[in-house]
């Protein structure tokens, strides 16, 4: 019974997923797609809202089955953030025209969310792997959901193959870990590895584990799937992959590294490299920041641009993992959650524009400020937040992450070189964000006919986007709202 009680939010979501499926298949056959989407989204949205309330309302501390299911305030906050992102994803999908299989689509989104929630709660390798697979499989299918578009299928297949390969490496790494430490619990693994030094087997384990999660968070060079998947997948699916899944993956990556590989950090400080997960991760972070930002400059499709910017942001967030302390954890979560809100919003805008103009190239954003003023204002907020302009949430995310990395205990400014690189690269990122905004606000007048027609913006989507923009602004003006929760959770959790 205790399992049911502690896993109640997850259970509710599973039930809701099945309910959405049932309602859609039994009651709404033959109705127009928009109505089915409306009703399905309403049910799913209510379920998400109820789950969030349950998560934020409880204060339990529990650790079931030796780390299979850990419930504490911090995981509750992270799960609530994931469910919130899911809720917004559902809201921006409602206007979608990419599928008739509404029930299946919504149910898959909810099931993927359940996967993320279990992932967040897990401190055991087996559970981590299983929930990772539940999440990944749902996401593969979501990527392929636009059956009329060949690119969607192609993207899904790439994603799937890449993901399968990465999962195989992960499993290999995890099995090595089990072999070396004799346990699948993260704390126990750290105990088992203590004092063994970096023997080659451990190096292989570290690297293969990193590959698996590097794939999930799209760190260079495991990012190759991301631009294709984001571009080919239906926009709400891409948004979901880029946001909710990122939150869960970064949280668990940080947990594995900070808890499981405690003692095998090594050092990534300038000129004093010591073997361990830190230097490997530093390499991935540096590559991600440089390659993500520079390649984004040359993109013409906004979804691909967001994909490369996501890779770059992943690089910044790896910095927070490397801080390897509570401030780093809190900073990482603040960053990934606010990044999720802004990115989800940006994808929402892309979705509307794509529906109206037929493609997502930057040219189709020309004159958006005149065609849809509210929409372009939202886009402005999201992109400036991603760029890190104060007083938007993205600025404080960067601030917390960079200050955690600089001030990381025991490193004595060792990560300064990475932080300097990150700041220089985030300056580069303004270039491509502002290029989009320039198209939206400073129209060239090349498309006069297109630029004068007002654009129809679905009400539910617009409401969701305005709400997201509002959240981004609020969290930027009062970062303590979220940071307080994260730190309170963190301090109790450790």
């Amino acid at each position: 019974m205790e399992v049911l009680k502690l896993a109640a939010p997850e259970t509710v979501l599973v039930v809701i997923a099945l309910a959405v499926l049932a309602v859609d298949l039994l009651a709404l056959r033959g109705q127009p797609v928009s109505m089915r989407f409306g009703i399905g989204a309403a049910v799913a949205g209510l379920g998400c809202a109820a789950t969030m309330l349950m998560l934020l309302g409880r204060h339990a501390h529990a650790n079931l089955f030796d780390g299979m299911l850990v419930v504490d305030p911090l995981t509750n906050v992270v799960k609530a953030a994931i469910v919130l992102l899911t809720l917004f994803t559902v809201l921006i999908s409602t206007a979608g025209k990419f599928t008739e299989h509404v029930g299946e689509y919504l149910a898959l989104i909810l099931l993927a969310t359940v996967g993320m929630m279990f992932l967040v709660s897990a401190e055991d390798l087996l559970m981590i792997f299983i929930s990772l697979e539940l999440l990944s499989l749902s996401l593969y299918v979501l990527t392929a959901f636009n059956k009329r578009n060949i690119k969607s299928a192609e993207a899904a297949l790439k994603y799937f193959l890449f993901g399968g390969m990465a999962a195989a490496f992960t499993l290999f790494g995890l099995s090595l870990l089990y072999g070396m430490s004799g346990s699948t619990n993260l704390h126990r693994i750290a105990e088992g590895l203590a004092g063994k030094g970096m023997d080659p087997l451990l190096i292989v384990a570290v690297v293969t584990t990193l590959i698996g999660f590097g794939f999930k968070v799209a760190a260079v060079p495991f990012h190759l799937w991301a631009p294709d998947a984001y571009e080919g997948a239906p926009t709400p699916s891409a948004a979901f992959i880029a946001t909710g899944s990122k939150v869960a993956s970064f949280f668990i990556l940080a947990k594995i590294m900070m808890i499981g590989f405690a003692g095998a950090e090594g050092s990534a400080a300038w000129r004093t490299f010591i073997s361990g997960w830190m230097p490997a991760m530093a390499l991935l972070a540096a590559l991600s920041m440089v390659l993500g930002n520079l390649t984004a400059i040359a993109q013409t499709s906004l979804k691909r641009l967001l994909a490369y910017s996501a890779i770059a942001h992943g690089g910044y967030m790896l910095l927070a993992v490397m801080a390897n302390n509570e401030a780093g954890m809190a900073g990482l979560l603040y960053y990934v959650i606010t990044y999720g809100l802004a990115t989800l919003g940006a994808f929402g805008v892309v979705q509307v524009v794509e529906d109206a103009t037929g493609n997502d190239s930057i040219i189709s954003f020309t004159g958006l400020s005149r065609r849809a003023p509210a929409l372009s204002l939202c886009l402005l907020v999201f992109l400036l937040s991603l760029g890190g302009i104060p007083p938007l949430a993205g600025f404080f995310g960067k601030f917390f992450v960079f200050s955690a990395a600089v001030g990381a205990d025991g490193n004595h400014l060792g990560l300064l070189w990475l932080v300097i690189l990150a700041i220089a690269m985030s300056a580069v990122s303004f270039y491509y964000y502002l290029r989009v905004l320039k198209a939206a606000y400073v129209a060239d007048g090349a498309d006069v006919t297109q630029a004068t027609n007002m654009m129809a913006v679905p009400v539910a989507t617009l409401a969701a986007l305005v709400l997201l923009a509002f959240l981004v602004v609020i969290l930027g003006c009062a970062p303590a709202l979220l940071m307080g929760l994260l730190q309170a959770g963190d301090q109790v959790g450790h």
Partner: protein
Amino acid sequence: MNWIVQYLWLIPALPLVAAGIIAVSKQPHRKLAASLAIGSMGLGFVLSLMAFLATLGHHGEHGQFREVYNFNWLQFGGQWLQLGWVLDPLTAVMLMMVTFVGSLIFIFSIGYMAHDQNFTRFFCFLSLFAAGMLGVVIANSLLLLFISWELVGLTSYLLIGFWYHKPSAAAAAKKAFITTRIGDMGLLLGMVWLYAQSGTLLFYDGGKGCLENDALVRMVAQTAATGMAVTTAIGLLIFLGAVGKSGQLPLHVWLPDAMEGPTPVSALIHAATMVAAGVFLVARVFPLMEVTLDSLAGNADGLPSTALQVVTWVGALTAFFAATIAVAQNDIKRILAYSTVSQLGYMMMGLGVGGVAIGMFHLITHAFFKALLFLGSASVIHGCHEHQDIRFMGGLKKFMPVTFLTYAIGMLALAGFPLFFSGFWSKDEILHAAHGWSVSHWPFYLGCAGALLTAFYMTRQVALVFFGSYRGGHSHSSHRSGSDLKSADTSAHSKEPHESPAVMTVPLIVLAACAVLLGFLGTPWWPAFQGYLGQHHGSAGGVVPLMVGSTLIVFAGLGLGWWLYAKRQRKTADEPDVLEVVRPDIFALLRNKYFFDEAYEKTVIALHAWFARACDFLDRWVWGGAVMLVSAITVGLSWLYRATDEFVVNLGFDAGCKGIRQGGDGLSKLHTGRVQNYLRVIGVALVVLILFLVWGRKA
């Protein structure tokens, strides 16, 4: 905690929201804009009244009501940055004054700005200003105060340059902004230093704030570079901010030019509220300014702190010099502007010699009668078809009776006419305190001379504007421009001046009533105001002779002005001034404001221009070249990456895609395409990473 303390933030938040809504509403929505702005101010006044009542009843531990509400704003490292607001008598008095005078001026503006095309923008800026000003007033953190302070500076800039198509207005706006920035630099430095020393920017924090005993004891014991106490150095830096904002010597040059803005703006911002913010700032950090080792030791007879001495001297000199300049001006608003500078000097002097209550009392009474005078001048300007030169006016008494009566009350209050007007009581307090100052008697003499001049120039102004016969219309050709925007359509030669509509005269009457009545709150025999601000009046001894003396001074000024300007009215507008005939050299010096602007032009600005050119050269050729080089490299690299991504990585895959489209056995080709390229990367990465770590292990 009192609920009103918790919700004190509503007072600035209301106009802020109003400004936001007005900003996004369309230009023709005039009614919406005006009613939102006035409504938010009115509601703010009601809340301020409640806050005021809350401070009346209760008394805190030091005999004075003070409650704070602090909250965490953001964290860096292990420290939380806290902001908050405070409710104490100082806050309550300022809140009442700002919201009340503000409401009246907002109402007046409906009439004054009725024909302006950018009516809604005007009210948006006004509301934003009110939000900033009220933020300054309630702030319990120097940081929050600074943020609001800068907001106020910005809106002042926007409103001075409201008619930005007039080059003089645009220049005046820039001048005001840049000049006050110089002061703000000091404030910022002081703030940083204060934080470094005390570790907090909260004023009051239950014993841990930077104005409370612990922090003061700690800071006063340390000495800065030149041997003065750290508190004195920080106090002086903060005072520099106040000097800029309150137009004290030598940063007073922007305030007279700021009269280029619409006259209600001059009344609200450059007479009643914003320029008083500097005085308020000094009053707010007064504990920091006054603390010395002597005073901490309980020795009340020691010399006042260096910071307060500087405040006193700057104030006294400003009070005197600005009054002399006002004597020789001809623009009705400029006379008032110099008189404002002079009165602000009095306030500073009052703070320096007598403490918070005396300076603040003059601030409050001045706010009312100076707002009254400015609005009266606006009414005059409105009635005279946008003329501002007093030589072209005259005899307006019979055309504008209401304006005349209220203006006369304001003028008598400013001049310090005995017994019935508030200005008399508040100025007398300052002179009395100056008389008893232990350091020097010179501020007292300067103050007395300033009082004489004030009575003199105000009589001159009233005599030229309201008495005699109307001189406008005759010599229109020689009219010197320098007036408001709408001077273009003053082609009406023979039009007579007219009285203003009720929406303008009613606020005048209300302000006039306040200008009279407020004085009775602070007489030496019933010092209600001073008692409320927590400062009990010192010895009342020697008050009466001093009062008789200052009365004689005021009468001398009034009589002299009357004899020179009203008895012998000038016939035409072009006649030289009486004083100009007697001593043309001194008069020219005064008319040209001691050539302050020219001196700045030759020295500071010239130096700055040279430096700017040097920087420009550096920027254009040295840094610019470097940036171009870096950007070229960046763009090149990104193209390289793109090419790699597209041609090397995706090429095989694209070949596969083509196969699918052609209906061939796509899947298998697709398969080989991707696996061979994408997955190969994983393998390479695995090997490279492992080698990297193994290499690291050996090193």
